[in-house]
């Protein structure tokens, strides 16, 4: 029991590591709670990034030096901020929240508590924790590095050796701190990530929409993700981390923070988190950055914006692939078949299978409600295209991937609901993008 407490408490090093960055004046527009949530996400990226780099360099992991390295990096990242960037004040609108506004915050809080209750009662645990994430993390913790001998073992290639390392790195970090992997504690990363998202999202969305709408859209997002997490048993899996990174990155990109150096730097770190958390984080990041640069080109210096958004992820993934290549283990992601070897005749069954698994949890309401919010929203701006098209491209990517299997029915049963679970957040964010709402920080 004690090891489990230490395991989960050690993840407090994530916000600690990123606080030197989030304490910068550029981020004081966000509330303390919002910055805490953002620091949790950014700190996990910095910690994991250093773990990968040290593994590449052949240097053993030690918890305190790792936190110190991540915190020093966070401090150094303050310097690329544009000197002229105004240290914007916190939200000027200090009028007390109305009852309906308090109600949406309360609903989001209850959604997090429900996720905690489901997880703590062992009702939301992912089998992949036992078969995939956990064994790798505990071997990495014992080896105090990415265990090349484990990844090289042909009997263990079911562990998806090339899978990006963020989740296993963080679990290994906590396991080193606790002395062993806390299986139950690892499941609590689901409500933990949801809580970090619930803290950060309302504040980040305020830079894109009026306060009441930002808070309400956040509540819908948190409720949908919490519901899907319980239904699809994601506790201990990579999805909660992916939700945290992708949702916050997209919320930053559609807000007025997206046009600032500080906003882009933070979004770049979060996109790096998505890229290094799960394979599908890479198409999300590439599509998001490409569309962002096109849609907001008039507000940006394209080169520097692209660098801030893509360099952290490129560095993280590059270090991981360099590790695989230098140890002769992998030279890129595992293939799910030849790129153009597609079973088009399976399109109908694949779409039917996906529809079945999206319908099962609550009659597809977690997707239909944000979609309806987007369709019903008035005065939609061009910015709404960013999350909407990214969601559509991701959906197409998943279908395209499933079409590589001659019979993907089992694959869809096992993963279909989870991979589509990021879409509700993107649709809810898109529904907030309206003409005339571009600048809300000072409201």
């Amino acid at each position, binding site marked *: 029991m004690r090891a489990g407490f230490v395991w989960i408490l050690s993840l407090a090093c994530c916000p600690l590591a990123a606080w030197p960055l989030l304490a910068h004046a550029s981020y004081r527009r966000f509330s303390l709670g919002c910055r805490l949530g953002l620091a949790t996400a950014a700190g996990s990226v910095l910690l994991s990034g250093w773990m990968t780099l040290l593994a590449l360099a052949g240097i053993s992991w030690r918890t305190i030096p790792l936190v110190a390295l991540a915190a020093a990096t966070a401090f150094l990242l303050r310097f690329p901020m544009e000197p002229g960037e105004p240290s914007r004040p916190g939200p000027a609108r200090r009028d007390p929240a109305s009852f309906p506004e308090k109600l949406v915050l309360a609903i989001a809080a209850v959604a997090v508590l429900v996720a905690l209750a489901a997880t703590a009662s062992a009702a939301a645990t992912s089998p992949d924790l036992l*078969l995939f994430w956990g064994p790798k993390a505990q071997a990495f913790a014992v080896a105090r590095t990415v265990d090349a001998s484990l990844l090289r073992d042909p009997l263990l290639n079911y562990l998806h050796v090339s899978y990006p390392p963020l989740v296993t790195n963080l679990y290994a970090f906590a396991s080193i701190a606790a002395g062993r992997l806390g299986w139950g504690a690892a499941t609590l990363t689901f409500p933990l990530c949801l809580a970090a998202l619930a803290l950060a999202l309302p504040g980040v969305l305020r830079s894109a929409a009026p306060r009441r709408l930002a808070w309400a859209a956040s509540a819908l997002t948190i409720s949908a993700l919490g519901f899907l997490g319980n239904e699809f048993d994601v506790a201990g899996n990579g999805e909660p981390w992916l939700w945290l990174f992708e949702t916050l990155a997209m919320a930053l990109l559609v807000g007025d923070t997206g046009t600032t150096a500080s906003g882009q730097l933070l979004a770049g770190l979060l996109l790096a988190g998505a890229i290094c958390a799960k394979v599908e984080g890479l198409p999300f990041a590439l599509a998001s950055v490409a569309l962002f640069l096109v849609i907001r080109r008039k507000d940006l210096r394209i080169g520097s914006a692209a660098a801030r958004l893509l360099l952290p992820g490129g560095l993280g993934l590059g270090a991981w692939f360099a590790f695989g290549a230098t140890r002769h283990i992998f030279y890129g992601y595992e293939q799910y078949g030849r790129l153009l070897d597609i079973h088009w005749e399976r399109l109908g069954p694949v779409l039917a299978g996906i529809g079945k698994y999206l319908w099962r949890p609550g009659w597809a309401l977690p997707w239909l409600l944000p979609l309806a*919010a987007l369709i019903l929203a008035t005065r939609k701006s061009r910015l709404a295209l960013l999350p909407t098209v990214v969601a559509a491209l991701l959906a197409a990517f998943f279908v395209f991937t499933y079409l590589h299997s001659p019979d993907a029915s089992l694959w869809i049963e096992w993963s279909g609901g989870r991979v589509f679970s990021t879409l509700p957040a993107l649709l809810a964010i898109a529904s907030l993008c309206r003409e005339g709402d571009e600048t809300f920080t000072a409201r």
Partner: protein
Amino acid sequence: MKPRSDSSQFFFFLVGAAVLTAIAIKRLPPLPELLHAPSTPFDHSAPAAAALYRLFAEAAAVVPAGASVASICEPRDPVRETLLHREAIALLPGRKVLAAAVWNTPTRSEEKADYLVIVGPKPASSPGRLILETPAGSVWRRSDR
């Protein structure tokens, strides 16, 4: 005064969030089970996996670090033993876990193991000395080691 579209959008979000949260609450395990600490992380999400988790967790207490161990099932089934090997890799860290089956194909590597974790009923012929028995299976020390 808020524009009308703002209010309708706000209440749509609010009602949507409330509905999803209400359904999530309804699908939680019953209150007594919520208040009772689970014995494994899989008690409600995968009860079959929970029984195996308990067996391997108890096996970890009797199979010493560094020993070789294989997990098989009775009656023998290479498909199930492929999965059992993966669970043993996760739950018996520090031991040399041998695969009785890989990708649903028997390997016979279990014959080289110091310890056997047998899921299901005890085998007809004893593979060694019984050192642990649970409702889910048993753990044996091979007599010829």
